[in-house]
């Protein structure tokens, strides 16, 4: 009953917003770094490739997903995170500092930055993960979204344990050899954290945004169970080909099912947000197929980079952009409306034409980006377009924020 009483309590606007907006500079930085990467994307193990990977993952993806999780869980399953403002004021700076230090360490700032990165990320992720798990566990709604989000947050914490151990080891510290596993770290991150969170959110927002049919009940049930089982297999034997085949099959099945649902949508018009989703789902399909083919490739090192780019930029970056263009305008309208301000409907918060410019820049960045592992000269064009896309995204968000503040000022000025 207590949860029911408080089920309207979405967090204050600034809580998800600070995370969502902080994601964007990491995307710009990734674009700039890419412009100067030269032949560094010939392998995923070069310092530049590692820095780029972590700009996209612990920078862009982690910030955006924390913001989205804090906003979506109260609506999806009634899981109200307690003291969201306090939690965000602790977690947000820790994650920012951790991500910046870790990227600096990969770029040669010094071994101490590995430790600072590990401390920052652990200090942010531990309270965030434990509080989120506690809220999810107590949530009054017991649906597949809740199970998927529990698997996602658990996967995030396990990914972080391996990540912190790897950072400490790179910084010259001593950790258990069992924890120094890049194979477990990235599989747990991509599939168990990323895909579980995406599926848990999708069960809610895909039917909501486009009035599609619901995800088939057996799919919702078995997909989450499959991801949890795959997570355990990753811990048992992360590099085993069967584990990769299992993970790739799950990723492809999620993408195909979601694309089919979107084809059955009842809303006739598609917008930029929908196109971002389509880009993400097609990229996820391509990444899953490539992942299955990797063991048969004679020299897979460049194809591994392609896989990473498909997952991080084609997949997660695209879907995050698509989600933000629904979440931020909706929350702007909602919070202004609840405050009694003059109505500002979503399409007046950020115009479709402004979002379309971002979409075109983002889509234009993908072909040269995906060629970069084999044609290093493409990195300049790909990086410039990726940076420009995120600059345009920042511009669009600034417009939204400016309009929100304007309406709030008008409200205060009322007699």
């Amino acid at each position: 009953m207590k949860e029911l009483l408080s089920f309207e309590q979405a967090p204050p606007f600034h809580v998800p917003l600070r995370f969502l907006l902080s994601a964007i500079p990491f995307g710009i930085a990734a674009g700039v770094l890419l412009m100067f990467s030269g032949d560094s994307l010939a392998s995923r193990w070069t310092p530049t490739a590692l820095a780029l990977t972590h700009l996209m993952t612990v920078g862009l993806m982690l910030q955006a997903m924390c913001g989205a999780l804090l906003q979506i869980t109260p609506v999806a399953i009634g899981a109200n995170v307690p003291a969201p403002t306090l939690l965000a004021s602790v977690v947000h700076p820790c994650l920012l500092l951790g991500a910046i230090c870790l990227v600096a360490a990969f770029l040669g700032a010094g071994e101490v930055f590995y430790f600072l990165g590990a401390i920052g990320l652990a200090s942010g992720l531990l309270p965030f993960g434990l509080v989120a798990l506690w809220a999810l566990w107590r949530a009054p709604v017991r649906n597949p979204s809740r199970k998927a989000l529990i698997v996602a947050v658990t996967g995030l914490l396990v990914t972080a344990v391996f990540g912190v151990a790897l950072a400490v080891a790179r910084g010259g510290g001593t950790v258990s050899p069992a924890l120094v596993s890049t194979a477990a770290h990235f599989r747990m991150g991509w599939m168990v954290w990323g895909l579980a969170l995406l599926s848990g959110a999708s069960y809610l927002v895909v039917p909501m945004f486009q009035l599609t049919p619901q995800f088939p009940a057996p799919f919702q049930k078995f997909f989450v169970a499959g991801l949890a089982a795959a997570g355990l297999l990753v811990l048992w034997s992360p590099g085993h080909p069967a584990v990769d085949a299992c993970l790739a099959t799950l990723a492809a099945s999620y993408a195909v099912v979601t694309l089919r649902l979107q084809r059955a949508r009842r809303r006739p018009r598609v917008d930029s947000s929908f196109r971002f989703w389509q880009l993400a789902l097609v990229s996820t399909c391509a990444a899953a197929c490539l992942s299955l083919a990797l063991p048969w490739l004679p020299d897979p090192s460049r194809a591994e980079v392609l896989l990473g780019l498909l997952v991080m930029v084609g997949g997660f970056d695209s879907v995050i952009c698509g989600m933000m263009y629904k979440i931020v305008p909706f929350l702007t309208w909602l919070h202004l409306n609840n405050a009694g301000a003059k109505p500002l409907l979503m399409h007046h918060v950020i115009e479709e034409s402004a979002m379309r410019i971002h979409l075109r820049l983002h889509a234009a960045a993908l072909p040269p980006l995906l060629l970069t592992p084999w044609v290093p000269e493409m990195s300049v064009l790909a990086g410039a377009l990726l940076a420009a896309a995120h600059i345009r995204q920042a511009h669009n968000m600034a417009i939204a924020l400016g309009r929100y503040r304007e309406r709030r000022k008008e409200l205060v000025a009322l007699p």
Partner: protein
Amino acid sequence: MSALKPLLANHHEHCDALFAEAEQAANTAQWSDCEARFQAFVEALDAHFRAEEEVLFPAFEAATGMSGGPTAVMRGEHAQMRALVEAIQAAVSARDADEFFGSCETLVIFMEQHNRKEEGILYPMCDDRIPQAQAMADQLEQRLGATA
């Protein structure tokens, strides 16, 4: 036994279908058709809101002793949706496609998140707490049936 949740969740689905038909008519610039279909949606939505506000919520409040809790939030959201519906009706009258689809965007997300909260939390609680929930479901079915 669950009686209220399936009935009211099905009626949400019915309202969604009417809303989608209005959007499809607007997409092909068949404004007279859109006007009629949107009016059918508005009538179904209004019947749903009134069934909740006049029958379901008072029964829930009497059964639980809560009048300022979730039902107050739901009533507030109904008022917000009614205001959005008025903005869309103005766009239909003005034959303004951009304003129509833009306003529909806000309504559909707000309406769907409202429905998820009701279906996930409030209706199961109503089924648990309201005595004679099955009899109430039969009564609501008759009221809503007129618009279905």
